[in-house]
């Protein structure tokens, strides 16, 4: 009784102090108290922490806070094209504000875009070519905008031929310039000229309330930045998304829920329809206790493979890893099955090649290259072996079947899609031959470098459970094979350790690809040797392995003048894969499987891997906006 009174009294007091202080801030006019009927409302988990400055919607300013993935870029922003990381509703390439695909001139120094007609900003002003021109010119002239530097490098000038045609004049030939305005997670968004024109300094404009081209507008938001409520526009038909139908939910709420366990609780309680990510353990538990909860795969392993590739990245500037035979030996010491079990509880999609096994890549790369992989020969110096085991995915499926039973697919194609095709078979003998060939010596079970020192290094790894267990397991396997490797948790991998090259080897994701298109320029262009810095200096994204090779430069040079979406483009991709297998500058491991979940208690029509893989269910991707057009109330 006392405790109860204590609680009530404490709460009352807390409330009074809190609200008194708040009341002063709340003098601004706020909409009246509104109910959100549950059957008309979709509640989505936003993985970002509550926004530090929730009132600031100027998405173009670099580092402008965290409102972006809270619905702003999914529901209100729009730009010329989208590439879906999966198959898309009507092919993975969407023309959004653009009427159709980009057109380059012959030497790729000009790009012409025809815009869709009849699109309107959420405040009723018509969208025209002037908005595009204004966006490019404004972004170019203010270095505090994140896109300023890229546009200044590329764009000499931009002009509107008429209300619906824009021509970009480029500084240098660039066959990939359109990617600036093509959404993979996000892209450069088009600004409403009539809003920003009014402010003297467009970087200081808070853009509140935001005015957008998407089918939703801002309804209300938490002054503490934990949630944003968006309401469907009455004139949703005047947006580019309308061609795929009317978005189902009248309201969409994005909520930040930092604690993983609370996400599960909220979904089970019916307060959450889509979860960005869970731990593997929480995902298995969720589908177990909530009959409406689903993952991307209908059964085990549930998770959505995002188009990026957790790998072991060697610092190729470290002399320990200079020799490809050493890198290969280290790869052959690993047992992928055990790593899959330890990291993802078997729910990993393995990949032996440096392409994420996701989206359309499986059909574009993994499947066609199977025969080449099976026939691939590796000369260890004393023998020639076929290192590839095409059935590792099937073996992992059998390993998890006792625990997950019927949830594990039985169809071979489905298994390969979910667990991966194969990987390099663990072969300690061949690894030993390679090391000996490279001048290493063995004493007992311990390896020594040609200089006579103990062969060992530190493998840095992230804190997140999955990647951490992956790294810990790899270090353990190497130690058992006689290489003294210790795994070490590093909290600042991104932005600090990776860029500074402050590592010998590191587990991290790398190789971000489009997912829905075989083109590799998204990450590969930055791998050109011209961008590699001296040891100790800061390496700009994304060649963090600091690997250089004449063949790699040739591939990139040719890619720069090859048309997107052509067979030549794909052939160059194959060349890249073969080079990466030969050289093994990083050890590719598996796709970055995100345990995104959704609940069919209130809404149906979500994408899934088998029936309708039309979109990425991972909620913070701007591409996820296509899902909303497919949703229907469950009752």
């Amino acid at each position: 009784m006392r405790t109860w009174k204590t609680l009530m009294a404490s709460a009352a007091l807390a409330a009074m102090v809190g609200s008194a202080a708040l009341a002063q801030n709340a003098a601004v006019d706020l909409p009246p108290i509104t109910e959100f009927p549950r059957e008309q409302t979709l509640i989505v988990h936003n993985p970002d922490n509550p926004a530090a400055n929730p009132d600031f919607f100027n998405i173009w300013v670099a580092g402008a806070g965290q409102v972006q993935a809270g619905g702003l870029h999914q529901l209100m922003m729009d730009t010329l094209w989208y590439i879906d990381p999966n198959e898309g509703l009507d092919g993975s390439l969407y023309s959004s504000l653009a009427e159709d695909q980009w057109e380059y001139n012959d030497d790729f120094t000009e790009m012409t875009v025809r815009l869709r007609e009849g699109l309107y900003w959420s405040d009723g002003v018509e969208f025209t070519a002037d908005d595009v021109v204004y966006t490019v010119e404004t972004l170019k002239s203010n270095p505090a905008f994140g896109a300023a530097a890229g546009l200044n490098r590329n764009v000499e000038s931009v002009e509107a031929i008429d209300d619906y045609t824009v021509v970009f004049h480029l500084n240098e030939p660039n066959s990939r310039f359109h990617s600036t305005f093509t959404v993979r997670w996000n892209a450069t968004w088009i600004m409403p000229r009539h809003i920003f024109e009014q402010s003297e300094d467009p970087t200081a404009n808070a853009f509140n309330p935001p005015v957008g081209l998407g089918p939703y507008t801002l309804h209300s938001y938490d002054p503490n930045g934990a949630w944003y409520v968006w309401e469907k526009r009455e004139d949703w038909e005047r947006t580019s998304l309308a061609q795929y139908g009317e978005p189902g939910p009248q309201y969409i709420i994005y909520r930040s829920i930092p604690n993983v366990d609370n996400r599960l609780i909220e979904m089970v309680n019916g307060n959450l329809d889509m979860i960005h990510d869970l731990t593997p353990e929480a995902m298995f538990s969720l589908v177990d206790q909530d009959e409406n909860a689903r993952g991307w795969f209908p059964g085990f392993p549930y998770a959505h493979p995002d188009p990026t590739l957790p790998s072991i990245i060697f610092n190729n500037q470290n002399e320990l890893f200079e020799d490809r035979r050493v890198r290969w030996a280290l790869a052959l010491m690993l047992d992928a099955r055990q790593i899959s079990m330890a990291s993802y509880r078997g729910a990993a999609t393995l990949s032996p090649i440096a392409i994420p096994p996701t989206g359309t890549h499986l059909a574009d790369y993994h499947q066609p290259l199977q025969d080449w992989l099976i026939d691939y020969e590796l000369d260890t110096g004393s023998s020639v072996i076929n290192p590839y085991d095409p059935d590792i995915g099937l073996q992992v499926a059998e390993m998890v079947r006792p625990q997950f039973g019927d949830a594990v697919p039985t169809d071979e194609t489905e298994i390969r899609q979910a667990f991966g095709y194969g990987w390099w078979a663990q072969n300690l003998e061949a690894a030993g031959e390679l090391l000996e060939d490279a001048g290493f010596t063995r004493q007992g079970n311990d390896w020594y470098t040609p200089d006579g020192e103990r062969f060992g290094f530190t493998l840095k790894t992230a804190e997140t459970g999955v990647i951490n267990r992956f790294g810990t397991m790899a270090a353990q396997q190497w130690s058992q094979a006689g290489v003294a490797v210790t795994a070490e948790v590093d909290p600042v991998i991104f932005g600090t350790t990776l860029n500074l090259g402050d590592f010998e080897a590191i587990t991290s994701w790398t190789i971000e690809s489009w997912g829905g298109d075989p083109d590799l320029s998204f990450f590969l262009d930055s791998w050109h040797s011209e961008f590699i810095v001296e040891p100790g200096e800061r390496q700009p994204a994304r060649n963090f392995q600091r690997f250089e090779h004449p063949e790699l430069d040739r591939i990139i040079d040719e890619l720069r003048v090859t048309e997107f979406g052509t067979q030549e483009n794909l052939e160059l991709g194959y060349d890249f894969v073969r080079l990466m297998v030969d050289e093994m500058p990083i050890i590719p491991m598996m796709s970055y499987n995100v345990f995104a979940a959704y609940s069919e208690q209130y809404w149906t029509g979500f994408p899934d891997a088998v029936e309708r893989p039309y979109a990425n269910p991972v909620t913070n991707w701007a591409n996820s906006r296509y899902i909303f057009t497919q949703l229907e109330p469950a009752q």
Partner: protein
Amino acid sequence: MRDYFTFVLKRLLQLAAVVFAGISAAFFITHLSPISPVDMIVNRVAAQSGGDPLAIQDLRDALAALFGTDLPLHEKFLNFWGRFLVGDLGPSLLAFPTPAIDLVMRALPWTVGLLVTSILLSWTIGNILGGLGGYYQNNRFLKAFGVLAMGVQPIPYYIVAFLLVLLFGYFWPVMPISGGFSINVRPGFTFEFIASVIHHSILPAASLVIVGLGISFLGMRAMVSNIVTEDYVTYAELAGVRTERVVFFYVIRNAMVPQLTGLAMALGGIFSGTIITEQVFAYPGLGSLLVNAVNAGDTTLVLAVSSIAVIAVAGAIFVIDLIHPLLDPRVKVK
């Protein structure tokens, strides 16, 4: 009385010196951080779009110039104090260009509201029960409470808080487990809003009270069980002074002075926020702001939070020192 004023004046000077030293220390520690806010932002921008490495370098340079992060440390230090003295803490780098102080002020009411209430409650109840527990050492209820307090106190706070979430949000879902108030009410001086704030603060406040109660209970009981053996208490008892009077005026009052110091410091300490409470209950406040700032290498924001914390604690000590001679006549003002 004149003595007292000189005392206050001296203490005031000391306060200023402490604040200066404390904030300067915070400044230098903050700038030891290897995390560069520029690189965190550049990385965020680069990770989300196909990046031309040269363009990324340009963006880096532009931001470094904008944030002034390339200046030498002593210049930054002088700049910092120059701006600090006119009340400008500079723009947050994590939420550029919003002033850091705005972010702090937004989070502050929630932290202060939640913590002041729970600290006062657990301190008052804990001390009264602890005082009684020290005096009536054979009372069964108080003994049982002592055992309970002893058992609960060492449980890591995180576990206590999360157990409340599990119990009242999962097994018996009657309480909201995240946010400061419901999504469908608007902030304002309305019944709905206040009710919603109360509803959302019950679990976080309860977790803090459960943990805080034990600390003040055990501390007070230890103090009192020493004081009851003092001669003047025995005399009073023998002289037939009423028991309640002995307990409250002879015993608890004397045990109060050190406990009051503890209270002032606890109140001053709330400005560092309660990061775990905020994480577990997704409750708004300073703690999460601070951790976000540290993670993002946002030195201005870390310093803004730290400065306020330094001022608050130093101020609390100042006040306690001023009233100490008034409370305990044996302490002479010098």
